[in-house]
């Protein structure tokens, strides 16, 4: 199974970390570079600062665990989405904006490729993992709204990343498509 992660930021990089034992070919796409502030909420180490996030994910998983993945350090846009995602058996949305989520949804629906989304609120008190059949992308209340990149949110990001990884695992091993809602008290099916 070929699993394509779109986004290797807080949620994407954490979920990748927990997916390293999956029996499948993992691909990660992210155009962004690791900054020192990212170390507060993402799985990257100091050695990754300045590197592309997809490449840094690939290096870390290879160096620490011997896990080989593919990395594409580009922005996913309509001009390259066919080339990067058409061979996927599963798409994972860990983007940070509604436009990119919608692009991925449109592609997945047109190609009938399973797609699971992970998304969290700005204050990191609530998050969802939801399959595309039941997902609609939310937009920020105001453009450029402050996001959950501070270190205070790391534990919640960890819960979301682990939940996403488990839901991916259930799909890979048994074809299950579970949704989840996460708040500060619980992870619950929905």
């Amino acid at each position, binding site marked *: 199974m070929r699993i394509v992660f779109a*986004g*290797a*930021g*807080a*949620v*994407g*990089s954490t979920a990748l970390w927990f997916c390293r034992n999956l029996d499948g070919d993992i691909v990660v796409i*992210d155009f*962004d570079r690791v900054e020192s502030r*990212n170390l507060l*909420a*993402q799985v990257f180490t100091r050695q990754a600062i300045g590197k592309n996030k997809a490449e840094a994910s690939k290096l870390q998983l290879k160096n620490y665990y011997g896990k080989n993945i593919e990395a594409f350090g580009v922005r996913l846009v309509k001009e390259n989405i066919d080339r990067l995602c058409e061979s996927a058996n599963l798409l994972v*949305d*860990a*983007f*940070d*904006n*509604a436009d990119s*989520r919608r692009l991925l949804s449109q592609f997945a629906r047109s190609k009938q490729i399973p797609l699971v*989304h*992970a*998304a*969290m*609120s*700005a*204050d990191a*008190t*609530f*998050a*969802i993992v939801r399959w595309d059949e*039941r997902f*609609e*992308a*939310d*937009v*920020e*209340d105001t453009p450029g*709204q402050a*996001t*959950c*990149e501070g270190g205070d949110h790391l534990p919640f990001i960890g819960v979301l990343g682990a939940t996403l990884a488990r839901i991916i695992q259930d799909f890979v091993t048994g074809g299950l498509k579970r949704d989840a*809602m996460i*708040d*500060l*008290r*619980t992870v*619950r099916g*929905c």
Partner: protein
Amino acid sequence: MAILTITYRGTSAVYPLEISEDIGDADIKRIAVEVIRSGEVPGLQIGDLGNSAFMHFVVDRFDTPEGGKRLYLRPKVPFGAL
């Protein structure tokens, strides 16, 4: 009968609701404010909850296999990666 799940400040609570099929989001938000204020939602009682507490929230609507409705009043979730 619908089941309304309200998530506010990191806590979720469930409230059964008699509603019509065409009830709008604004009405659901208004009802949520009222029932939380009055203490009718177990685990989510805020007596001084403001009228605009759910202004930026969204409502998800799903049909259940039993023919009912599940409603989720929740914060927006725009973020996933940075």
